């Protein structure tokens, strides 16, 4: 059970969790996007390793999609957006970095403590994969909650989606059609979000989503 296959899977999905925490730590947009690209590359490696040990060739396609779209296309287009929006300055975070990181660690602990008893019947590989996937998802959610900048919220959303793909790769037997349609819906989401970003900027001269609250009359 504790063979090389398990160790490498643990290494790769563990580094995904680590990179999720690194995303929380970044306070500049460009480095955030670079780390996000890293996140996708490690996701591709993790999925490819799952494909190798499960003997499921269609997972290689998933890995390739993750590498091409999330590792290259999305970060590059986000880079361009940031450049055209002219917002490559500091991100304002709602809570400070220290409490956010502590909260993130607590979320990792929570997801491990929840996932391990729930999935007791599954084999060890699936168990740890699901636990780490849940923590990547939760960290993505945390990122969306703590950031005010719309671009970093997008990055949080995309890293959340990476966690979903990691979970899907760990659970055996996910059809390729679902995989491809998810990849394309994410791309379409990126396009829609991109259009929205520019609309928001046009309307409010900023991509700080707190302005939206004020616009809806929720804050004086």
């Amino acid at each position, binding site marked *: *059970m*504790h063979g*090389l296959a*398990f*160790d*490498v899977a*643990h*290494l790769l999905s*563990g*580094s995904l*969790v*680590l990179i999720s*925490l690194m995303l929380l*730590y970044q306070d500049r947009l460009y480095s955030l996007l670079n780390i996000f690209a890293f996140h996708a590359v490690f996701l591709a490696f993790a999925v490819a390793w799952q494909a190798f040990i499960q003997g499921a060739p269609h997972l290689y396609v998933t890995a390739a999609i993750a590498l091409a779209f999330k590792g290259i296309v999305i970060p590059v287009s986000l880079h361009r957006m940031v450049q055209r929006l002219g917002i490559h300055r500091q991100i304002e975070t709602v809570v400070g*970095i*220290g409490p956010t*990181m*502590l909260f993130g*660690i607590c979320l*990792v*602990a929570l997801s*491990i403590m929840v996932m*391990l008893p729930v999935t007791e019947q599954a084999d*060890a590989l699936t*168990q*740890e994969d699901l*636990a*780490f996937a849940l923590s990547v998802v939760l960290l993505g959610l945390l990122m969306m909650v703590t950031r005010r900048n719309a671009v970093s919220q997008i990055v949080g959303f995309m890293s959340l989606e990476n966690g979903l793909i990691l979970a899907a790769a760990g659970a055996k037997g996910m059809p390729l059609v679902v995989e491809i349609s998810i990849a394309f819906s994410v791309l379409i989401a990126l396009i829609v979000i991109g259009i929205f970003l520019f609309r928001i900027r046009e309307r409010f001269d900023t991509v700080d989503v707190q302005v939206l609250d004020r616009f809806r009359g929720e804050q004086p």
Partner: protein
Amino acid sequence: MAVIADWLVQGMQMALVLIVAPLLTGLVRKIKARLLRRQGPSLLQPYRDLHRLLRKEVVLADNASWLFRIAPYVVFTAIWVAAALVPTFATGLLFSWSADLIAIVALLGTARFFLALAGLDVGTSFGGIGSSREMMIASVAEPALLMAAFTLSLLAGTTQLSAIANFMLSQHVGLRISLGLVFVALLIAALAENARIPVDNPATHLELTMVHEAMVLEYSGRHLAMIEGAAFVKLLLYASLMACVFAPFGMAAAGDGPLAYLAGIAAYLVKLLLAAVVLAVFETSIAKMRVFRLPEFIGTALMLGLLGTLLLFVTRSL
């Protein structure tokens, strides 16, 4: 007969750390100077400094209490004992049953506590600044060190350094991300504890930025020699801790002959040389951080240690 030999080897280890420590600091200084294209002081300069300080008379402040006078000896003793417990060239020495990671952290904590008290004792403003900053750093760095110790002991099933080194040499280690995380956490904690560059600059007495030097500003003569010696030994301690845990190659096992011990010493010296080069290159390539950013930097070590323990917990419970 065997007992006498064991005592001898243990004594050799205690003497070795004491003799090599100033050389390591001198080496780091020399490499740093050469990297800046300066000539740099001789490798033996730390020994000469210690010798000169030991001969000089002690100047005591009028309001210094007994605490101020005993603190240097307490600090030096605690750190020397800790350094002598870390396996350097051989595992399974006479005292290795007490070479416990948590005990070593406790010894270092004791030393730091007394140094901070001594900084406050005379009542100068610099001593106060230094002590409060040192405590701020320690309050984050020490938990980080403990988390690293927990991760290692979870992995090896023991907190004894000698057993951990043997475990790392065995084939059961496998590929562990927690080890990588702990390595980085230990590196950051070591930089913080030794007052090395991103945290504190060991080479200056620049008033606003100093931490360690501010605490010991009032010391002179043999007291200062003790404190400087303790700083040298502490650097060696962290270098040999990292070497023992992450690169235990070439260490002699218990009961090997003198030849194995000699080979172990040679391997140990090579590891120290590598550590000195890495530290010097690292220190020359980055700048010192602002004091208010330090909790973030050292907090990273704490976070990595926590994460390492958590990730390991997953594999352990499966």
